[in-house]
């Protein structure tokens, strides 16, 4: 029934003596929303960076839609259909919102002007399309970040804390957008610290600890798992215990 869209196999990334990703094997089905959680320093962002070509993995493979994309340049991976956002949503300066959208290298078949307009309308920021992007509010910048990724028409989107630093009303709006996109078939991987947010939206959760993929399951399964509790409690800062 379900088809694997993105698969990593033994993905490993080392920085000197530190193994940031230690043999991560993880598969994501098409149409799924997958949460990625873990204590600080557990290797979540490194995992995203290895997936999207910003780091070259020391071992292991990444397969996307049946194609081995391990070690590809990040721009090629983006064109292949994996979009991502960054923790800090910074628009490109000295450009309007629309120009930010048009900067994206869209697939050749797409009319980029039309697509940009559609996405801006979808995200409800078309009224500021021709304003300077640097004047946007924090939440609007997050929306623009998502909008730029959508220009790629990606099958899979990796989000690094999509609602961090955004007011609750706008966070809800962002989540609604993600659900809409998911209904249309877009697959998501989401790093999120806010468990209340995560609970609302994910189908499944993968837990990373010390660079390893320790547990995978539904939110409820994972939140009662001993290994997960240990992973979080084992970390020095009790505030990080999410569940």
């Amino acid at each position: 029934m379900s088809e694997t869209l993105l698969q990593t196999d033994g993905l490993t990334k080392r920085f000197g003596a530190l193994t940031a990703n230690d043999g991560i094997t993880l598969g994501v089905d098409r149409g799924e929303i997958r949460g990625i959680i873990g204590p600080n320093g557990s290797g979540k962002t490194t995992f995203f960076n290895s997936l999207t070509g910003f780091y070259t993995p020391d071992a292991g493979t990444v397969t996307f839609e049946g194609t081995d994309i391990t070690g590809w340049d990040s721009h090629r991976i983006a064109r292949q259909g994996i979009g991502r956002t960054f923790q800090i949503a910074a628009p490109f300066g000295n450009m309007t919102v629309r120009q930010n959208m048009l900067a994206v290298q869209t697939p050749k078949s797409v009319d980029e002007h039309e697509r940009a307009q559609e996405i801006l309308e979808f995200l409800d920021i078309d009224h500021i399309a021709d304003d300077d992007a640097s004047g946007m509010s924090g939440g609007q910048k997050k929306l623009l970040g998502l909008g730029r990724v959508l220009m790629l028409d990606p099958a899979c989107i990796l989000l690094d804390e999509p609602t961090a630093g955004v007011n609750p009303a706008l966070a809800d709006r962002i989540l609604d957008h993600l659900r809409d996109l998911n209904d249309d078939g877009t697959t998501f991987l989401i790093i999120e610290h806010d468990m209340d947010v995560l609970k609302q939206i994910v189908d499944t959760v993968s837990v990373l600890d010390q660079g390893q993929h320790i547990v995978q399951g539904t939110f409820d399964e994972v939140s009662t798992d001993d290994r997960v509790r240990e992973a979080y409690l084992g970390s020095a800062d009790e505030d990080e215990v999410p569940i």
Partner: protein
Amino acid sequence: MGAENDLSIRNRIQALLDRDDAHLWLFAAGTLFLTVLPLALNTFWTRIALGVLLWVGLAQSWNMIGGYAGYLDFGHGAYFGAGAFVTGIVMTELELPFVAGLLIAGVFCAVLAYAVGVPTLRLSGAYFAIATWAFAEAIKELALIIEITGGTYGMTIPTGPGTAGIPLVGWPDEMFFYYLMLVLTLGTIALAYWLFEHSEFGFRVKAIRDHEDAAQSLGIDATKIKRRVYVLSCAIAALFGSANAYYITFVHPNDVLAPIITDQMIIMALLGGLGTIGGPIIGGVLIFLLNRMTSLFLGQTTLYLPLIGVLIMGIVLFAPSGVVGILRGEVGREDVKRNLRELAEKFNIL
């Protein structure tokens, strides 16, 4: 849905037209003014105007890689000089007309810039700056050693518009060169405007400058785009080097490959405003006139150097976005005050 789209497209086109209009009229008026200007000028002032055009064009060429792409090319002058020598060699050794020299200089330097750009653009920030600087100095030293450039003797180029392959009987040389520079400079400005302010290519260049990782994650091939900008900006510098060589008729490594050539381009773009179309134009005019006027009225050319030095430091301190930034209201009295206050804090060393 369809009607809504039509409306939005029309709005969009309208908005673009509104903005285009203003710039287009400005450009047309400027072109007209500059075309008739020499009729009102004597030889001396025509030469000054010619120099302004040359430097505005050069500053704009640096602005492409330095301002728009954010790569600090401290060796841009190498291409200005290389363009001069290639033209000289083509005209003396091959005895071809100037037009051939100009084209070959452009193509040769584009190829050279590609070969240099591939490894050099892998370096970032200060390393790129030092590497390009060292490269340009090495080129200058090379030109002083090898025979084909005339070594330390320099090289003399056949004179007169006649050698351009265009019969221009009765035209003063200054006129010919003025219009040559005018075409090159206006062409450079128009190209920069279209490419960097109005096309997706330019948006991508700015995206890479501001946030290379994010740009890459949006499918932008940063390596390829930076290389294209570098090749383009260097080839344009070579065209100006070629035209200038034909104008001054004598080229020497210590003149056309002098580090001050690059310095001036950077300073002009910076003074006017980095990464803007207007910046290099304003900066080019101001700095070149400052240069000529100090020597004209004070009779001493070196005073220009310390003035330039103070000017650079002043801009960096108080108006990093240049004259364009001041015009846009980015640098008010309050900003200067805040700047001074923050600077004073840095002196708190006890």
